[in-house]
């Protein structure tokens, strides 16, 4: 068992939905997606982002792209127009989540990513 960052299992992107943010986390491999499904629960993400004061966190699956999509409700301090945050649109949330330290039994999978162009 070793401790790695979530970024070694998955990539992602985040954005806004009014005062809510979405954070998509996409596994590089099937094994990585199985891990995400079992471990990256809505509760785990809510706890990780607890200091942002989300009213609730909801998780959706997009297994077709090995993805989980999290919606963090009421987390942007009023939404793009009204928010006093620098990151009014939640663009930094995905990179923040991918810094999460996780326990992983196998070698990190980011090295075996097969989806980049072989250019």
């Amino acid at each position: 068992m070793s401790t790695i960052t979530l970024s070694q299992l998955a990539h992602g992107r985040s954005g806004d939905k009014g005062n809510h943010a979405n954070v998509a986390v996409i596994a590089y491999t099937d094994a990585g997606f199985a891990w995400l499904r079992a471990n990256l629960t809505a509760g785990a993400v809510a706890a990780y982002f607890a200091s942002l004061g989300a009213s609730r966190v909801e998780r959706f699956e997009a297994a077709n792209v090995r993805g989980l999509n999290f919606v963090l409700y009421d987390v942007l301090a009023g939404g793009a127009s009204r928010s006093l945050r620098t990151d009014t649109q939640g663009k930094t949330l995905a990179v923040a989540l991918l810094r999460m330290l996780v326990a992983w039994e196998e070698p990190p999978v980011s090295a075996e990513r097969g989806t980049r162009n072989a250019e």
Partner: protein
Amino acid sequence: MKRVRIGNGCGFWGDNLDAPVRLATAGRLDYLTLEYLAELTMSILAVQKAKDANAGFATDFIDVLGRLAPVLAAQPDLKIVTNAGGMNPHACALQAKHVLTKAGTVRRVGVVTGDDLLPHLDELIAGGHTLNHLDSGEPLASIRDKVVSANAYLGAQPIADALKQGAEVVITGRVADASLTVGPAAHEFGWGFGAADLDRLAAGTVAGHLIECGAQATGGLWINADDATGLGDVGYPIAEMSADGTFTISKPAGTGGAVNVETVSEQLLYEVADPARYFTPDVVADFTSVRLSQKGPDVVAVTGGTANGVTDTYKASIAYRDGFMAAGTLVIAGPNAAQKARRSGAVMLEKLKRAGFTFAESRVEALGAGDCVPGVVTATADPPEVVLRVAVRDPRRAAVERFTKEFAPLVTSGFPGTTGYTTGRPPVREVFAYWPALVAKSAVRATVSMV
């Protein structure tokens, strides 16, 4: 099999000004789409229109169209679809026509209107359309007197209608971003907007969603972008569609960026809530039925994208006046830069309180020490300097104006290592808050006209 190439050269008002011409020149496009409207752009345009009846649209489009005129002359079949019309599609169309005519280019310009609900708002409310806030459930009546703009997100049908009537440039107000792509596809392939073609509309919606943010599908914001990705020369996305709804995502040959399963899957889930139910005016699309496969260098094939029904409502985007805000920055050097910055922010607010000003909301950030995501990402070392950012919001403009005068004093009365006061006092801006609602499709009438 007939294929239609739709490229999007603009993802928002403020996007790269050279991208549309480059994409149209190198993309072998049938359609160039240009997307200009963010959620609150309409409120800003509404205020502009209130001051000047000929204003209220995305003026960047007129500059871009002027530069596109020689490309249009060389490619007589290239058509343009854009929501640059904003709050004033007719004025935008007249200027577009003028710019093209001046360049010696003759094009039929179609205008889609009917999205602007403001003139009908009281009638709508009186008719029982309460336009409740989608989150809070509160009826719009509670802030009716502060509303500056109210627009329904129209769908692809009026765009397809305009093309059918011979428009070569289609200018809309508020339409769903993905509909800018669905409209041309529906027109070219003869898709209807009834039950028979819902899956195809869903597939077109997937294509539209993937290209609507421009370079975000071609390497922009890609987690694994690096120097080799060539973002300085990033190519903008092209959806090449077939009649059955299958398509590829690519970019012009020789451009920078990257189109691969990672970039496309990141964009697929961007700004999505439930991926099985992506709501547009045209269809409820199921993104979980989409399949992606790498077909070659910078070409991803996309299949699936099925319908999960259709709604009888449009989303309405309403903006209302909600006070004023300002934000300013200073640079604070260390040691203990983050603590000094946070303390400087507190000092500023304390001085304002002594002067009689407290604010509805205030925020102090030490950027460089993790405050973009405060309490989640924290600095593990003492950064040599951080950016102090202080922002306030309040109903009183005078209070916010007074706040903007409290940055400079820190340069002499704050902590040592305070610098970066070069741009002067930060501007005060009016806050337009966002009020999302639903409105019955039967209460909204889209109209197509020609200029």
